[in-house]
């Protein structure tokens, strides 16, 4: 499990906890349950957590799928610098936010889930992970016809693409020691 970025799962868990807190809070407030003001707190905390956790951080390796419309929140979350970058801060923050919701049955599920998210963030922080904002790239849309390139100018054997830099292309290398059971004749079409 060496390549797991725990922060990614913590992020999903915290987002879910935020939604659960909001739901529990609405139920408690609308139903005017005993001590329903904890429910109001829960709604506010849930909204804050959802806004904080909505922008997904960048993965260490490979491309990261952005959440829809997250670039607006990314710019806000980026402003807080080390407070949002550091996962120790998030772990402590989530733990503290979860405590008041634990006094009400309607929101106690949110507390439990947020506490779990806090633990996973702690694990992520211990492993040195950090929140890196996904920066918008200038989008170039190549024409479909434009990807047709000239045939390669050097004769085979040609080195595989890892040697030549082609970041957005998947490929398998040239040649291969495959032996045909029956000889194949070349048909020039």
């Amino acid at each position, binding site marked *: *499990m*060496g*390549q*797991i*970025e725990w922060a*990614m*799962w913590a992020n*999903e*868990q915290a987002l*879910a906890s935020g939604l*659960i807190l909001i*739901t*529990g809070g609405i*139920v*408690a407030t609308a*139903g005017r*349950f*005993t001590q329903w003001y904890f429910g109001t707190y829960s709604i506010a905390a849930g909204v804050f957590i959802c806004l904080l956790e909505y922008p*997904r951080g960048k*993965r260490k390796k*490979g491309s990261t799928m952005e959440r829809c419309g997250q670039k607006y929140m990314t710019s806000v979350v980026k402003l807080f610098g080390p407070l949002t970058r550091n996962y120790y801060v998030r772990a402590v923050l989530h733990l503290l936010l979860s405590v008041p919701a634990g*006094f*009400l*049955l*309607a929101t*106690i*599920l949110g507390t*439990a*889930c947020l506490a*779990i998210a806090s633990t996973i963030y702690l694990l992520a922080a211990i492993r040195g992970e950090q929140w890196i904002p996904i920066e918008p790239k200038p989008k170039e849309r190549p024409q*479909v*016809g434009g*990807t*047709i*390139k*000239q*045939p*390669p100018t050097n004769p*085979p054997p*040609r080195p*595989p*693409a*890892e040697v030549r830099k082609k970041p957005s*292309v*998947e*490929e*398998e*290398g*040239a*040649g*291969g*020691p*495959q*032996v*045909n*059971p*029956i000889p*194949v004749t*070349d*048909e020039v079409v």
Partner: protein
Amino acid sequence: MGNWLVDHWLSVLILVAWLGLNIFLFVYAFLIYEKADKYFYTREILGTALAFARASALCLNCNSMLILIPVCRNLLSFLRGTCSFCNHTLRKPLDHNLTFHKLVAYMICVFTAIHIIAHLFNFEHYSRSQQAMDGSLASVLSSLSRHEKESNSWLNPIQSPNMTVIYATFTSIAGLTGVILTIALILMVTSAVEFIRRNYFELFWYTHHLFIIYIICLALHGMGGIVRAQTEDSMGESHPYNCSKSFHEWDKYVSSCRRPHFEGHPPESWKWILAPIALYIFERILRFYRSQQRVVITKVVMHPSNVLELQMRKRGFSMEVGQYIFVNCPSVSLLEWHPFTLTSAPEEDFFSIHIRSAGDWTENLIRAFEHQHSPMPRIQVDGPFGTVSEDVFQFEVAVLVGAGIGVTPFASILKSIWYKFQRADHKLKTQKAGHAALNFDKATDILTGLKQKTSFGRPMWDNEFSTIATAYPKSVVGVFLCGPQTLAKSLSKCCHRYSSLDPRKVQFYFNKEIF
């Protein structure tokens, strides 16, 4: 749209039946708890939230039963095998088993939410009526204590005004198991979202085994008998229609009404989930048994771009084109099984897979085989399991599009077509097979060794499709794709665009397969 419906009518039917079943069960249970006389007094305290909670509970039982079945892949394979006389449209739903599993999971989440919210109201109402001093029917019912001689007469599980709802929840079996299983469910869902599943598969796989806790807690959940109904005897003696108005005079000599007696339900969930659990346990045992059979690795080839080819033999193994197997390597990871398409043809005397480095497990596997001097790692195999590619021989003209490692199913098909051609197999309808392999600058295909026309860059699908439509104006053309979703969208559009409205003229049928 018409073409799609013709291909998928059975899946649509199953979906509609499943939704209908859910709606029926919900309404059925809702009406019972909302209307039946034995819940009259229960409703007096709880209101309609009782019916919502019980209706969603019934749907949860049903969906928890259904969710284990689509993941029994050996069972599904068996069904596919016995059904081989059915045409491919009837067997198509078996390929969408994981989609169904996810749909049922979403439904479980929705009903869990309804169930929990309803029970939050229920606990709150029980708590309030216990604390109420107004002498209402609700407060009289709540004062029926469980510690008195007739231990059956209690209705309200919250027995003292000082007991908080949190205390009541965590000291009852239903409450405690409910909280635990909901947390297990939430953890399973958050680790199963596509982003986590695609990029950190092990996390998803191991966390998903929390379903064991979910199942155990679900079976125990109803044991406390906390939902109470009036007993038959008590109804015979003092029916709520006669006695509910005179609750001040229950048990007095003057009135004929005695105080009502209540009983809890026995737990039902286990009845729903017992059979699927047995099936699933059998499935895991079967997987284990199949995996213990010896796999002999006959050839290991390291291709450039970090692609490993393994050629293997196993006693009693027989495959069809385009099928896939699950592979486990105990020295890399004891518990993980990963699927790989078979790249060999059934006519060959070995079976092979090509593995591309795409994460922890594949990297470690490739590294384990790279060490030429250490002993060969042992491999376990489960399968083969079937997919859409088996249908390719039914089409006169087949267009196979593979992107990247997605060429693997078609390698198997092409090799098989070639063997069948060589042996003049009359069952082969395919007369022309065109293979667009989106690889770059290669003169020979590394998988099949077949020489092919080499093109560079992305094909212009409109041109390709119109060429095919002109060349084969009266044929049925099957278009098969194994590759990314964006490519699926453009190919699917082209299929619709170039299929003629006249069913006798050229028709393009689109099939895709994404792991």
